[in-house]
């Protein structure tokens, strides 16, 4: 059991939790993830470690409520406990030094970039975050990222804050020399279609890019193979070989298709959960 000591509502459907997980906090590196289970009979879902505090034994996770499990998690408050949490899982990415490193975060993906970008800034890299959301109120952790990165580029679909348009459009402008200028290396974290779009953009410009994939997984230790992705024609397990892969080598069509394997079942589980909540 893992106790929640702080909860912050970031957007109507996105919550930030700081939880007591001293072993995980001690072992964690930027870019790794945990797997949680919220109730008996519940699913195991992966969540990126947004931040960690080794001294206090805390880790931070950000949850976007999209399915039954994340909604259940979102209902938990300070003082509540998360049934199971295991980690840190996956490998920290190997980001090359010396150059302009641009993190591109879509939606809750910006949260996953937080401690990674801080680590890079601390290392002395020139860092820029390009973060996007549908509208201003859906942007998450913009202030925190602003303090960490040398440059913050905010994008909203409706223009309610920053650049009006997609992160990839702003990224293209950077590549063309606008603002903080052309990236030497790009880190993409966000929904699969966004990462695929980032990959297309940087591929055309010949910029090395890594993407953090979050396919379905169960154990997180390489035991089930459910999280397999094809990278450069080879089958890899995102849980142990990833989650970061060379975006230009990832078979995104397959990854997107696999991520939709249980769409109907997810709706059914969510409906079942809602009706149970209604009955209670």
């Amino acid at each position, binding site marked *: 059991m893992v106790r929640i000591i702080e909860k912050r509502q970031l957007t109507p459907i996105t919550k930030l939790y700081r939880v007591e997980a001293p072993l*995980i906090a001690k072992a964690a590196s930027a870019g790794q993830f945990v797997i949680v289970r919220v109730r008996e*009979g519940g699913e195991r879902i992966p969540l990126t470690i947004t931040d960690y505090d080794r001294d206090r034994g805390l880790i931070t996770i950000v949850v976007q409520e999209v399915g039954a499990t994340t909604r259940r998690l979102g209902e938990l408050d300070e003082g509540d406990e998360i049934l199971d949490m295991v980690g840190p899982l996956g490998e920290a990415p190997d980001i090359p030094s010396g150059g302009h490193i641009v993190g591109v975060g879509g939606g809750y993906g910006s949260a996953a970039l937080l401690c990674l970008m801080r680590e890079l800034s601390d290392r002395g890299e020139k860092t820029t975050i390009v973060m996007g959301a549908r509208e201003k109120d859906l942007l998450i952790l913009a202030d925190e990222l602003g303090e960490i990165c040398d440059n913050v580029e905010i994008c909203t679909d409706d223009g309610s804050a920053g650049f009006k348009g997609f992160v990839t459009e702003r990224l293209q402008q950077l590549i063309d020399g606008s603002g903080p200028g052309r990236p030497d290396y790009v880190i993409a974290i966000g929904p699969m279609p966004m990462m695929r779009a980032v990959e297309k953009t940087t591929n055309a410009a010949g910029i090395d890019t890594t993407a953090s994939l979050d396919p379905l997984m169960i154990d997180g230790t390489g*035991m089930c193979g459910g999280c397999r992705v094809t990278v450069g024609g080879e*089958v890899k397990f995102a849980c142990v070989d990833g989650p970061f892969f060379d975006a230009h080598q990832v078979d995104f069509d*397959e990854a997107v298709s696999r991520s939709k394997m249980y769409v109907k079942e997810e709706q059914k589980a969510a409906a*079942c959960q809602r009706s149970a909540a209604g009955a209670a």
Partner: protein
Amino acid sequence: MPVKRADKTPMPVRKPEMRAHDFEEVNEGYCFSHAMFEAERCLRCQDPVCIDGCPVRVPISDFMHAVAAGDMQTAAGILRTANPLAAICGRVCPQESQCEMKCHMTKRFGPVAIGHLERFVSDWEMEQPRSEEAAQPWRDEKIAIVGSGPSGLVCAGELARLGYHVTVYEALHAPGGVLRYGIPEFRLPNSILDWEIRSLELLGVEFVNNVIIGKTIKMDDLFGEMGYSAIFIGTGAGLPKFMGIPGESLNGVYSANEFLTRINLMQAFEFPYAETPLKVGKRVAVIGSGNTAMDAVRSALRLGAEHAMVVYRRSENEMTARIEEYEHAIEEGVEFHWLTNPIEVLGEDGWVTGLKCMRMELGEPDDSGRARPVPIEGSEFIFPVDNVVLSIGTRPNPLLSKSTPGLRTHSWGGLLVDEREVETSVHRVYAGGDAVTGAATVILAAGAGKRAAEAIHSDLNAEAA
């Protein structure tokens, strides 16, 4: 003595048409009189060769004597001393290639049902009242066990009996390893496993779930700041192999590990009340012929498949599953396609639609001594299927060896151990079970766990002396 000339007492089983639709246990178990009668069939051989067939050398003749006399208390004691996981092994051991194969009754009347009796006595033991007061360790040394599968459980139990502080670390949210995530309820009910684990807790063993040694805690920290004197690695062989044929990443293709884990650990059969889904269509092809393949194909049947098929490139003779599982599968309506080698998974819109196969014929023996299957030119054909489950074997997980400097492995991933077959290349780090041998049986893992516990005890005593 007429009893000795009787045939093997059949195991009472639930009717195939009933059991093929639920996950309740198939075998119902002997009753008391069945058990006494069956034990009386034992010839009391002067040289009980059955014991040579048992990897942990259960004193089978003494055991039979006690059962035939109706003294189940003594029988249970004999069993438990030799095999701490008797209730499990009575259910999952391949007795036909071990103790029962050696039995002198085998040729004429069928062997004494050693496995069924092992199960009966363990089940009897489980029904007896016991004290719920946990024992206290009396030695100072702490031992860490990595992984809670059969080798880890046995090693933990033996060390706790010797008075050590024992902690078992498990990566998943429930202990048991492959006994939990791999073997289905209809063959090994979770309640049996829970009872065994509770027994270990009563011996003083502590279980810690959700900790991955090598990730959450490094091996060095177990020795260093956490103060363990020895570590036993029983991490099994949990990494699924894929065939490397086109279409394996299509939706609807599972490793047997994933398929069974969704069912056994995550209870997908209770979806949507349990929230982990599993897609089982009308036609399911399971590739492979081991116990895991039987578990997967019979699970598919129980989850509504109308055609649950085993596809295997060799013939029935080379099949590696326990004979009982094979017979049960046939009774339940599983279809077997021998000498059939899958060469491609076909799909449409990202989903599996078919399995392209070739017919095979048997040629000269290969490295494994079994007849080599040779493809028949131009024999390609397509099975229309909704799911493909790959059950072609597993390898040891490299997670721990990768994160532990000095821990040496074979090229195929198995941990290297010393001439005693217990200690790894790292001092005071022991290993056993599938992590050392590659995928094998519960009883071999149990035997390895026991051997390691003895070695740990004698090494630590030698150090103290």
